[in-house]
């Protein structure tokens, strides 16, 4: 199998999987076997591409050409490889978790759920491997559309309303701003390809550059830069596996991944260094980090607190990339992976608590650590990674981020990172404390429960382990992240 075929397969496998899931929808056991097998096959395919990319090659394949210069093209560079690996690695684990969760909660429409999930993963692969802005945009839209039925899964009035917010914000920003920015780029440069060093250099300057930059940053609504972050908390009405893989990993990471791609391969770091617009985005990202953390502090609903934490963590990536130093670019890429492992663990734990204890609020969690020791251990590891303490993956990316900020003497960025670390601690430590050290409240609604179903526990243990492993063995992601900046670090 050549690398080119593997790229196409990585996009096709989930689609074929979706078809097979649809065909086997009447038999749940078979359907879920197909789901698992598809995700494992995809992981194998993506991993088979890893040696090629680590070798410094950049396989690419053009699927079709719509108009001269407008093509559907896939092109696998280090950052895309990293993102594809993270998503493909977490999908089988998430499928395992989904099986436990969806059965444990007797959810309806499970076939639709698995089909949409597979399509979403296919478009995530497409985003990771997109060779130009048009391909990226198409896959980005498919991802929005395929996750919409997952958000509105429950079908009640609340879910529909949340779905409207979700789709409204994501579609309108992407069609209103992102598409416009892409067309503008095409008008200016005559190409949409991602090129090292950027394609816009020397083509646009001054206020126009700033407008274009803002169109991109607010066009990529999935990066949830304030004030267009509202869709993410809204999406929390979805079943927890969706929040875990899609709204902590695939969808939101697709957003910040696109931001990094646009900054590195469309604008180019050198060009942004001399523009005031880059500083503004840096400030906006800092603002988002702090404000989202403060809002998270005030949420009692566990999933909502996690959602606001995600918003703030996403802006870390934006902040890191807009420090515009090679080291912080590495940090941005690493944080995409580090946050993914940590946050999926946290969501898995939240879903586990919901399945076993039917609890959704933080104030109900007193003493739950003794009833669900595995779940809360994993939760604690995830939370420590969010705060950025060793020995977890979150420490690594924060370390690089701070080094980059010092190198560029971005005092603002340093302050934001320090302040938000304190805030992260302030909203995660109380949960851990309550779970392990507080006495459970005695009320009549309390019923006895133990751990969640085995599939759920297994899944969250794996992701917690991955969070730790990434700290001890960061070689592969680090190598991918460093080659993103051409090896300067």
């Amino acid at each position, binding site marked *: 199998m050549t690398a080119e075929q593997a790229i196409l397969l990585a996009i096709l496998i989930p689609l074929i999987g979706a078809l097979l899931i649809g065909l086997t929808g009447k038999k749940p056991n078979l359907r879920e076997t197909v789901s698992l097998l598809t995700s494992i096959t995809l992981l194998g395919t993506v991993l088979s591409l890893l040696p090629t990319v680590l070798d410094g090659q950049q396989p690419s394949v053009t699927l*079709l050409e*719509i*108009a001269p210069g407008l093509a559907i093209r896939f092109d696998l560079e280090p950052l895309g490889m990293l993102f594809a690996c993270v998503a493909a690695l977490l999908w089988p684990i998430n499928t395992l978790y989904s099986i436990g969760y969806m059965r444990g909660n007797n959810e309806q429409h499970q076939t639709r759920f698995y089909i949409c999930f597979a399509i979403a993963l296919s478009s995530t692969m497409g985003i990771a491997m997109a060779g130009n802005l*048009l391909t990226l*945009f*198409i896959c980005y*839209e498919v991802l929005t559309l395929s996750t919409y*039925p997952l958000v*509105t899964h429950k*079908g009640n009035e609340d*879910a*529909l309303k949340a*779905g*409207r917010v979700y*789709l*409204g914000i994501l*579609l*309108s920003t992407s*069609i*209103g701003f992102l598409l*416009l920015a892409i*067309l*503008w780029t*095409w*008008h200016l440069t005559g190409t949409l390809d991602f090129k090292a060093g950027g394609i816009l250099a020397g083509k646009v300057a001054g206020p126009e550059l700033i407008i274009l930059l803002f169109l991109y940053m607010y066009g990529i609504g999935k990066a949830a830069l304030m004030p267009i972050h509202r869709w993410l908390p809204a999406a929390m009405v979805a079943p927890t596996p969706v929040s875990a893989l899609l709204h902590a990993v695939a969808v939101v990471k697709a957003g910040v991944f696109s931001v990094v791609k646009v900054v590195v391969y469309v604008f180019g770091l050198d060009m942004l260094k001399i523009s005031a617009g880059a500083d503004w985005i840096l400030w906006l990202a800092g603002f988002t980090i702090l404000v989202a953390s403060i809002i998270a502090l005030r949420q009692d609903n566990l999933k909502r607190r996690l959602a606001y934490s995600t918003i703030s963590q996403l802006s870390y990536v934006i902040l890191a990339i807009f420090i515009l130093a090679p080291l912080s670019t590495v940090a941005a890429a690493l944080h995409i992976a580090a946050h993914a492992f940590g946050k999926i663990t946290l969501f898995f734990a939240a879903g586990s608590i919901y399945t076993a204890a039917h609890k959704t609020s933080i104030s109900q969690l007193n003493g739950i650590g003794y009833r669900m020791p595995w779940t809360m251990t994993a939760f604690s590891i995830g939370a420590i990674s969010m705060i950025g303490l060793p020995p977890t993956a979150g420490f690594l990316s924060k370390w690089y981020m701070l080094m980059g900020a010092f190198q560029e003497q971005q005092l603002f960025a340093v302050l934001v990172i320090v302040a938000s670390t304190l805030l992260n601690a302030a909203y995660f430590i109380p949960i851990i404390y309550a779970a392990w050290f507080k006495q459970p409240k005695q009320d009549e609604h309390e019923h006895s429960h133990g751990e969640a179903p085995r599939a759920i526990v297994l899944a969250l243990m794996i992701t917690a382990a991955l969070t730790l492993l990434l700290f001890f063995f960061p070689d592969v992601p680090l190598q991918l992240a460093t080659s993103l900046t051409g090896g300067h670090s």
Partner: protein
Amino acid sequence: MIETHLSLLLVVIPLIAAPIVAILPNGRLPWLVTLLVSLSCLVLAIMQLWNVADGSIISYELGGWAPPWGIEYRIDVINAFVALLVAGVAAVTLPYALLSVEKEIPTKQISLFYSAFLLCLSGLLGITQTGDIFNLFVFLEISSLSSYALISLGKQRKALTAAYQYLFMGTIGATFILIGIGLAYAVTGTLNMADLAARLPEVEATRTLQTAFIFLLIGVAIKLAVFPLHLWLPNAYAYAPSVITIFLAATATKVAAYVLIRIIFTVFGASLAFQEMHIHWLLLPLASIAVISASLVAIFQYNIKRMLAYSSVAQIGYILLGIGIASATGLTASLLHLFNHALMKAALFMALGAVLYQVGSVALQDMAGLGRRMPWTMAAFVAGGLSLIGVPLTVGFISKLYLILAAFEQGWWWLIVVVAIGSLLAIVYIWRIVETAYFKPTSHSNVTEAPLSLLLPLWLIVIANFYFGIDTSLTVSVSESAANMLLGGKP
């Protein structure tokens, strides 16, 4: 033999078939004849486009009378392109018509229905073929009169008032066009469009000529449903039989847009229209208002056919924007949208026709739960909706792409904003239906998927929506060479 008489045959075959169909017994025979006629028209139209695709011009002298005295049929790539669109839509609509018409039209009127349909087809094709401006008026009236009749055949009684409203406005439009033609004739003494174009420079800038131009412009604007002369359209589309809504939405306004382009660019010339008369200061604001206000109104419609009709008014606005920019890219965008909008609206109205066939209503609340009951129909509706919004890989994206590029070339930011707002509003009105169809519990438990004879043409059009959104070589190259030809350059 067929080669030389292609353009005449295109008009005459449906024209002769119309009275024959009228005297056939009611049943399936009239449908069969009409289907055969429209299929043969499609074949002829394809042959014709093939002949002129290289930029050549075919001149056909009717009855052997030399132009400018006799009537000349003058075919270049634009005519052939629009003729192909009309014939193609007719050929795809007719297989769909069989069941839909049997359900919506009383049996005793079926042969009359198909007869009027053929007249309408003949009129529309005639407009695309003729090079004589008075002849064009005649064909415009043939198509208009037959469409008044067709709309009035709608099931609800409101169809009668809708048809009457259309008749009223259409007749005013026709009168304006006739006055315009008369004035132009008075100044130049000729009715042949090529000849008119050649003689106009000698008499340029007289008040009479300008008046003629304005009369023609407004007359055609009524037929095209340009904002604010569009009020006949929503009712006409909402209450006409499904097949007629599909056919008229996809062809009648497109042919009117073609006439507008012809009159502005071929007959009077871009320099008179834009440099002396400054009509872009009329076209661009009206088109922008149409895009935004009609889309806004569409959001608040509960009859979905009516909603799509308002969407059509907005889409006509896009076509006018391209004409108003009057650059090669702008005109390319207009011509592309002419074709592409026909595809998306045909798909959407066909899906609605299937809903009407199965459910008996196209009110929003009756669409609840149809995503599960009629999965193929609603999937087609979503696909057509995505195309209307302008998502990449659909035809809607291609037309908007060219329109926005044309605006970039001019540096007109406000126009880009208008297009962006129009697209966002389209998301809103399409998504209301998607949400209702897929996520609201159904009230009809016994509704099933539409029959295959409705689904196949529907999906053929849906596939075309994607095919021409991916492989744009045909549509873009034809539109580009047509635009260059209209602006007087080499094709």
